[in-house]
């Protein structure tokens, strides 16, 4: 196994990897335990924008996963991270249940606009306010740009259309900080499972992460070249070649164990 770089961190997707709805993925608890033994830093990543970290933690602990709140990194965490870095004071157009993850951030005299899934805030007055702020120079930060989502009463507009409208009106580009639907990597660095096995090649290469992943890793103090992301095959953009594909999560982790 030549040319290996030290693996310092692992980003693990939550939904579909650790659990599916309210059921743990078989073998996932044990695999996580193995990872812990390997003294690799772990961050659990998810694109939720409605649940606070505390809610997620409770749900996962109920499924017997051993993890701490600070190891959870959501799209909201990525937004918070950017706000802290740039010392922005945000106008938070996010759901009330998401506000919890922004406690401690100064929101007085806002000079940045953060847009999440917030139908209550997507009214004419509030959007005008956001628009005027952006015209005056406030950056537009989008948690994500989903076109729509499913509600009990049918499909409903997501934040994407409103972010697009603001981008057009103010002639600006939003910074999208949330976990993308498809995580984009250049070259290979993915350990994916769920598809058929293919021979393992064993070289980790450099990879380019999206803002979300870079933020998650910076909280662990490591660079993209020292980390891997583990997730369901469907989450990775097909244009890159997948070098590792494992039948299941457990096999994947034990294989990593051997090379660490």
């Amino acid at each position: 196994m030549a040319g290996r770089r030290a693996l310092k961190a692992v980003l693990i997707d939550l939904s579909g990897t650790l659990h599916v709805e309210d059921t743990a993925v078989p073998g996932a608890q044990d695999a996580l335990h193995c990872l812990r033994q390997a003294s690799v830093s772990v961050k659990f990543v998810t694109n939720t924008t409605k649940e606070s970290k505390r809610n997620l933690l409770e749900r996962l602990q109920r499924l017997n996963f051993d993890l701490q709140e600070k190891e959870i990194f959501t799209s909201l965490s990525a937004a918070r991270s950017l706000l802290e870095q740039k010392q922005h004071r945000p106008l938070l157009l996010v759901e009330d249940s998401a506000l919890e993850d922004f406690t401690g951030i100064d929101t007085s005299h806002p000079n940045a606009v953060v847009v999440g899934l917030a139908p209550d805030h997507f009214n004419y007055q509030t959007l005008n306010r956001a628009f005027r702020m952006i015209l005056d120079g406030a950056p537009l930060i989008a948690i994500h740009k989903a076109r729509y989502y499913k509600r009990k009463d049918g499909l409903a507009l997501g934040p994407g259309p409103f972010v697009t409208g603001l981008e057009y009106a103010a002639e600006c580009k939003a910074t999208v900080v949330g976990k993308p639907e498809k995580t984009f990597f250049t070259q290979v660095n993915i350990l994916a499972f769920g598809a058929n096995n293919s021979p393992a090649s064993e070289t980790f290469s450099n990879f380019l992460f999206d803002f979300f992943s870079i933020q998650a890793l910076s909280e662990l103090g490591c660079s993209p070249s020292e980390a891997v992301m583990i997730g369901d095959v469907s989450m990775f953009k097909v244009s890159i070649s997948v070098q590792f594909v494992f039948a299941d999560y457990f096999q994947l982790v034990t294989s990593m164990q051997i090379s660490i």
Partner: protein
Amino acid sequence: MRSKRFAMAATGWPGFAKSLKGVILDLCGVLYDSGEGDGVAIPGSIEAVKKLKASDLQLRFCTNETQATREKFVAKLQRLGFDISVSEVFPPAPAAIAVVKQRGLRPHLLVHDGLLQEFDGVDQTNPNCVIIGDAAEHFSYQNLNEAFRVLIGLENPVLFSLGQGRYYKETDGLKLDVGAYMKALEYACDLKAEVIGKPSLTFFQSVLNDMGLKPHETLMIGDDLVNDVGGAQYCGMKGVQVRTGKYRPSDEKHPTVTADGTVDNLAQAVDMILKQRGF
């Protein structure tokens, strides 16, 4: 040599005013600023319109106004003191109605309450398209969602947007225009809207046809650099921007549209035009 320089000057502003046969004026931001009640006439504009009408130039008004029926907003302008009549005004709604009738479409309307009356003769049952106008406060999440659901449920969704403006100026500040919401629905439904109104070529053409004039004989004066000036230029007309209404200094350094002339307001534009023509 001398005559060549003279000829070149005549293609620039205000020299080309000598060869004009008609002028088209935008309404909001040129004649008046909208806001509380009837809004406010822009200083000098009432007099400027009078002077144009007294001249030998043909005059029409081309607007993307969609918050009220043509009759209603012309009455408002008359109350403000403007000499203007319905037959001289070209807004998008009548054009849109003609289009849906011609194509056998039945629209779901996302427009200002004040415009609904304009669509009285139009079949709106079982809608198979959406028409979006400047709905202002009626751009609620719920109303947008309803329009979205109509479109997403159609096999061949058609979205008509009455104009595509990014924003406009009211007395209490800048406000999002129909274009922002058009883009929102385009993104949500992954489709492209058909724009009826400025800067659509057919729209400008319908005004020119009514005047019986060619584009190169006509000047458009507006506050919206892209939709008024750029749209007119694309049509072959000259376009002059006023520094009232939604004008912003950055317009004078725009990457794609350069106005043929930029003036402080309509009054100045008209004085310069008439001076060129010897008045």
